């Protein structure tokens, strides 16, 4: 570009009216300035919106991480002790066997502390307040390893949730109120035990691999079993909603005649996508449990209910993906003599695949985070008690799901469970993130340009 022919940039104030109408690319007049200002303002609004969004994201993420991190550590008591065969027999005779095992543990811990000469006064009640509910773990161990009876065994057992709170700073000497759960004087014993190396903080593997526990045993609670429950539900959702959804949309999009009936179906699918999820829960209770007699609290039923919820999402996104395939592809295939079905399955469907997969995974992610319908089919409460024994049991045995487990924990009285709920949210978010990454990877792999 050359600027030799253009008028000078500088303008003088004393121009005649005829000259005023002349415009210059170099001179920005009032209107242009106004338009530029509007554009700059709009950009500023946009940036502000993004900054506000990012701010909330940071606040949310950091509060989740800060609140949830304590769930991933726990305070353990490291102790070596012996249970004799007689003690084992005696404990197995009792009704409340685990309490008896706990008694052995507390007694031997107390004895060891006396030998070590811990420099704080204590009694067995104080020791009992320090340890969590450990009888279940001890009993299980000795029932499986009966040959170790009579020999010293090293255990790492959970401390009580209050000691846990003291170790991670939730409870301080100033804030503690004496109760039968923990006394102020107990904190001196804890300090002495930390010094002696009996009590320490460790990564809480049990939180990731364990199952739900009773309300008086927050140290034993884990999210593992409900992760498995969620996984089996997602399997049901995937294997039912993907084939049904894709088949329905291919038929509607490629084969069905355009008439009142198909219009009606279309409107209904769009409406179904907007139905609140609790409605599907009520439907699930009435149809799957009360009418079909499928088991209560089972991931199978949860999966079926969530399938109903996910189907409209998948059908809508699949139809959009099919519509986006250029008609020339179909015409070319039909033109070289392919049947309609060949044209769809050999040419259209592969091109629509990335859209279908993205829609499916978004639908699954939505289903993964859903609690409301599970309330009605018995998956919320004290449910996730262990891992299923096999594949079939995984579908039919009572289990919970991640969001239901988080909801349950958040409602419990002991504050330690509140931390577990935040920790559970972190695990759930990691799952969702993994699913979204999978969606992006699949999309990239299958994407084709024309």
């Amino acid at each position: 570009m050359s600027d030799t022919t253009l008028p000078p940039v500088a303008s003088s104030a004393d121009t005649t009216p005829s000259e005023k109408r002349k415009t210059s690319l170099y001179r920005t007049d009032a209107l242009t300035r106004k338009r530029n200002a509007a554009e700059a303002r709009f950009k500023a609004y946009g940036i502000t919106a993004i900054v506000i969004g990012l701010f909330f994201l940071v606040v949310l993420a950091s509060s989740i991480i800060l609140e949830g991190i304590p769930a991933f550590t726990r305070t353990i008591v490291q102790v070596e002790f012996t249970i004799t065969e007689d003690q084992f027999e005696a404990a197995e005779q009792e009704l409340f066997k685990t309490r008896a095992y706990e008694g052995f543990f507390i007694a031997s811990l107390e004895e060891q502390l006396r030998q070590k000469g811990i420099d704080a006064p204590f009694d067995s009640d104080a020791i009992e307040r320090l340890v969590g509910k450990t009888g279940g773990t001890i009993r299980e161990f000795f029932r499986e390893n009966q040959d170790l009876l009579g020999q010293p065994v090293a255990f790492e057992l959970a401390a009580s949730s209050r000691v846990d709170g003291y170790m991670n700073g939730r409870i301080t000497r100033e804030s503690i109120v004496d109760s039968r759960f923990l006394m102020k004087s107990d904190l001196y014993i804890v300090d002495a035990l930390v010094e002696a190396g009996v009590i320490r903080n460790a990564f809480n593997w049990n939180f990731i691999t364990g199952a739900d526990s009773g309300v008086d045993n927050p140290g034993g609670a884990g999210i593992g079993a409900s992760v498995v429950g969620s996984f089996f539900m997602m399997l049901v959702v995937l294997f039912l909603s993907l084939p049904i959804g894709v088949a329905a949309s291919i038929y509607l999009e490629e084969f069905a005649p355009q008439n009142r009936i198909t219009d009606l179906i279309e409107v209904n699918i769009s409406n179904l996508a907007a139905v609140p999820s609790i409605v599907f829960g009520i439907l699930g209770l009435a149809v799957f449990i009360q009418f079909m007699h499928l088991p209560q609290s089972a991931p199978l039923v949860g999966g079926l209910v969530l399938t109903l919820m996910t189907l409209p999402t998948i059908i809508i996104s699949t139809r959009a993906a099919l519509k986006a395939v250029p008609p020339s592809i179909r015409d070319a295939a039909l033109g070289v003599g392919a049947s309609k079905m060949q044209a769809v399955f050999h040419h259209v469907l592969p091109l629509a695949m990335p859209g279908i997969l993205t829609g499916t995974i978004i639908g699954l992610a939505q289903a993964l985070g859903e609690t409301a319908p599970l309330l009605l089919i018995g998956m919320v409460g004290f449910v996730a008690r262990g891992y299923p024994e096999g594949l079939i049991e995984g579908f039919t045995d009572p289990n919970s799901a991640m969001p239901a487990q988080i909801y349950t924990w958040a409602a419990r009285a002991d504050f330690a469970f509140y931390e577990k709920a935040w920790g559970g949210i972190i695990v759930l978010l990691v799952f969702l993130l993994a699913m979204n990454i999978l969606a992006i990877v699949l999309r990239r792999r299958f994407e084709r340009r024309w």
Partner: protein
Amino acid sequence: MKFTTLVSVAALAAAGTAFAGAAQARDQVQVAGSSTVLPYASIVAEAFGENTDFPTPVVESGGSSAGLKRFCEGVGENTIDVANASRKIREKEIAACAENGVTDIIEVRIGYDGIVFASQQTGPAFTAFQPADIFNAIGAQVLKDGAIVDNTYNTWAEFNSDLPDVEIAMFIPGTKHGTREVFEDKVLLKGCEDTGAMKAMMDGGMSEDDAEDACINVRTDGKSVDIDGDYTETLARIDSNENGIGVFGLAFYENNTDKLKVATMGGISPSTETISTGEYPVSRPLFFYVKKAHIGVIPGLKEYAQFFVADEIAGPTGPLAQYGLVADPELGATQASISAEETMN
């Protein structure tokens, strides 16, 4: 065609698992009901699973009324075996049960629970209440200058100068909770009688039943808020409102003593001792109901009920008392009635 084969295989597999599931019999006890009983039931369920060879029972929440409704849906594997309740089953519910074939019901009383009034640890000095104070604060119609008028009190000090001069904000259990009934009977109704409002209503031409209904009516101008969720929701409301008074179960309060300050009721402070002696006025028994028809069908059902009320579990030194349940002094009679499978009549 590869894709269609894949689709049909997937559909067949899904259908296969569905039928396999339908054919399986239930082998764990299924429990639902009161959220007040839920913590105790979950403690027992965990211990039952750890101490016996039966699978751990499934315990759901949802409120006494919802639990009893599901309990009364009928007999069979697809209905629950045990309903937890923080109140006695009503005649109406027994009738509904009978209509659906649930005739033999075993009632089990597990112990007592105190209902406490608590506020923020650092909030105004709410340390002593009388039932009359609560009634004056949230009753729909109260006695003012000898006449029954709509409740317009704004602060506590307006009717009791011993109480702080701050705005009334009460968070009470919603109507689906069994706790609400006890709150109405033992606090609102009592307060209504104590203030003379009930007598004034009856003098004004109301029948006794109508007056009782009017007494337990709660004002609807936002000074009293129904909480339909759990106590954690009430706690969250109290946390964000320093003038708020919440209604909690004793066990919940005891687990959160660092956040909550409890008030005495009628001059008695709530504790397991004052509740077991009956001195503390606002307490109620907790129950669970067992479907007799399911005993022998669902493995471990009778054993679960027996385990629940065993001395080691529900007694004064057991884990339930440790958590906050007030042990029932007549536990022996309950144990005997479960062994004999005595039903209600």
